[in-house]
């Protein structure tokens, strides 16, 4: 695979801006740190050997290229477009997060910093970062909201086994956004020897650009794979959107193919009208703002205070959205939809039963939209769903949602065996 072309030519004097969105709004303390990171990243991405070493690491360590799987049973069930799935669940640690993390890990090596920090919501990015740190011999601290720790305990276990220090974040809503704040605060002190491995396409420039760059490996592979498999480009590409990294990555492969419609799927939670969701764009509830280092569309009140967000999928439970996606939405290049918790659980069940695939709850949002729209397309059309991760981590949440009695019994017995 060749090095991705220059994805974003900045407008004059607007480095780091995607239309109206992006930028770098950080305390002055971090100014030089971001400048250093920009220089290191620019230097690396202009060096063909760097992209080559990245692809090499991803193939020998992380399982890339991930396949595209044709889903005949689902296709027949919906009786419309042919459904293909890009299998990011097959990455080491079970999600697309590994792409970004290994890429930033290589960059950290070039910068010579001995410590990394990261935020995590679902725990996937935390586990991926801890894996990378273990392999590259870096000290690692993961910040995770107290609420997410309660939801995603198994990932905390793995992070700790991998040697990471997991710090519970107890302020604010105790979720992903608060973990990002905690990282920015740590970094304002520790920047001399620490790199912040931001997990999604948000935060100050150059993070949105850099994370998209590493995640674009998904889209570049997928485009070639679809051409190989079907002889043509897909009609639509679906991806779930938390911060937006898996979506940006898969969309990056098709941005210039105007015949390919790009569809981002946000968490509809308990329904947009219930107020319990994270649909910033699809729900029309988001407002432009500046927080956590970047300008984008946020779920906030009129006075700019961020609102509580909700999703059954911890990885989508976030107030903001990557500035590049906010711009692509504004320009009409990406369409945004939402999927509710109950639609997601139903799509997950169907996908497991029909294809033996186990999407993460986050990824299942993309399946919902594809299933909704497939019947109205023709069998001449192919659609591609990005399965950003695997669902193993969600066993507790899914077992609850499906009301699985056998599992509950098992947990009761297990708990009883730990009684003191």
């Amino acid at each position, binding site marked *: 695979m060749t090095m991705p072309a220059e994805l974003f030519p900045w407008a004059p004097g607007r480095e780091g801006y995607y239309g109206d969105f992006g*930028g*770098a*709004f*950080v*305390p*002055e*303390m*971090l*100014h*030089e*740190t971001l400048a250093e990171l920009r220089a290191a990243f620019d230097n690396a991405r202009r060096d063909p050997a760097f992209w080559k070493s990245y692809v090499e690491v991803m193939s020998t360590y992380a399982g890339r290229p991930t396949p595209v799987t044709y889903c005949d049973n689902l296709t027949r069930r919906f009786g419309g477009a042919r459904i293909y799935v890009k299998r990011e669940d097959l990455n080491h640690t079970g999600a697309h997060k590994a792409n970004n993390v290994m890429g930033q890990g290589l960059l950290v090596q070039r910068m010579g910093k001995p410590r990394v920090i990261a935020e995590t919501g679902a725990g996937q990015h935390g586990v991926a970062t801890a894996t990378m740190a273990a392999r590259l011999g870096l000290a690692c601290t993961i910040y995770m909201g107290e609420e997410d720790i309660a939801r995603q305990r198994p990932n905390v276990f793995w992070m700790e086994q991998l040697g990471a220090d997991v710090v519970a974040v107890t*302020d*604010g809503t105790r979720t992903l*956004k608060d973990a990002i*704040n905690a990282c*920015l*605060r740590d970094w*304002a*002190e520790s*920047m001399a020897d620490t790199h912040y491995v931001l997990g999604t396409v948000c935060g100050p420039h150059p993070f949105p650009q850099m994370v998209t760059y590493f995640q674009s490996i998904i889209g570049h592979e997928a485009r070639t794979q679809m051409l190989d498999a079907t002889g043509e480009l897909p009609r639509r590409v679906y991806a779930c959107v938390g911060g937006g990294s898996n979506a940006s990555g898969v969309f990056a492969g098709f941005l210039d193919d105007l015949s390919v419609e790009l569809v981002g799927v946000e968490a509809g939670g308990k329904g947009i009208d219930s107020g319990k969701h994270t649909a910033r764009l699809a729900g029309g509830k988001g*407002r*432009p*703002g*500046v*927080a*956590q*280092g970047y*300008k984008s569309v946020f779920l*906030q009140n*009129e*006075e*700019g*205070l*961020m609102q509580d967000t909700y999703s059954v999928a911890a990885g989508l439970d976030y107030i903001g959205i990557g500035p590049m996606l906010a711009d692509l939405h504004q320009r009409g290049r990406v369409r945004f939809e939402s999927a509710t918790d109950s639609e997601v659980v139903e799509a997950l069940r169907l996908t497991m039963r029909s294809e033996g695939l186990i999407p993460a709850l986050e990824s299942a949002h993309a399946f919902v939209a594809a299933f909704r729209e497939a019947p109205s397309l023709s069998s001449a059309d192919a659609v591609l769903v990005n399965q950003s991760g695997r669902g193993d981590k969600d066993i507790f949440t899914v077992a609850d949602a499906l009301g699985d009695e056998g599992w509950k019994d098992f947990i009761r017995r297990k708990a009883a065996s730990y009684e003191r």
Partner: protein
Amino acid sequence: MTGARTAGLESHVRERLAKKPLLLMAHVVVGYPSLDANWAMLEAMDGAGVDLVELQLPFTEPIADGPSFVKANHDAIQAGTAWRAYFDLTARAATRFSFPILFMGYYNSVFRMGAERFCARLSEAGMSGFILADLPPEEAAELNAMARGRELDPILLMTPTNSPARLAEIGRQASGFVYCTARKGVTGRKTDLSQGVAAFLERCRTATSLPLGLGFGIKTAADVREVRGLANIAIVGTACLEVWEERGADGYRQFLKTLAAETV
């Protein structure tokens, strides 16, 4: 309205510095622990002879603040502190007290309000300027120009991590005075002022002729004494709040007096 604002912040600071070697700036998170408590804090500041006051508008994502201020921001928001309550308090304070009052907060509040309206509201409330913890100068040109048109001073920060070139750039854009952070990190934790602070302030001095304030981790009267001869303004934030919580209103008044005593 105070005479301080129309005289311009820099000349106000310089006039005070002609009478005493060091000024004292104190901080309040508006709405925490309550608006009534804030008023008592302001009265105590007035009584102790505090020279400048920054009033923080709470924000949900205070990335430049440490644990005490983070909690204060969140609790103030929980209690429903909104723009109206904030500006009611600031306007009352500007009428009642003679010290200049600065807005302190995060850029999203300004962005949502709109630069024009933000400047108008500060001006109407009788405030003298503003400190925005997450607005870099390169994003601030329009806002700062608008502010100066209303005789409001944008207070910029210089930090120990800045290169000489960056300090010079900040120096070119600053007005009023410059807020120098005594160490890396966020607000709250104590600073060892013997560790490179003098050399850092030397670098700031090269970059600007404006008065220099020194903040971040200045917590005791002894700290304030140490700032004498180093900078022109000692800035005390978290310590005030912590004293209020630990020692109550009387302890707070006493504390401010001991700090102010080191500035004369």
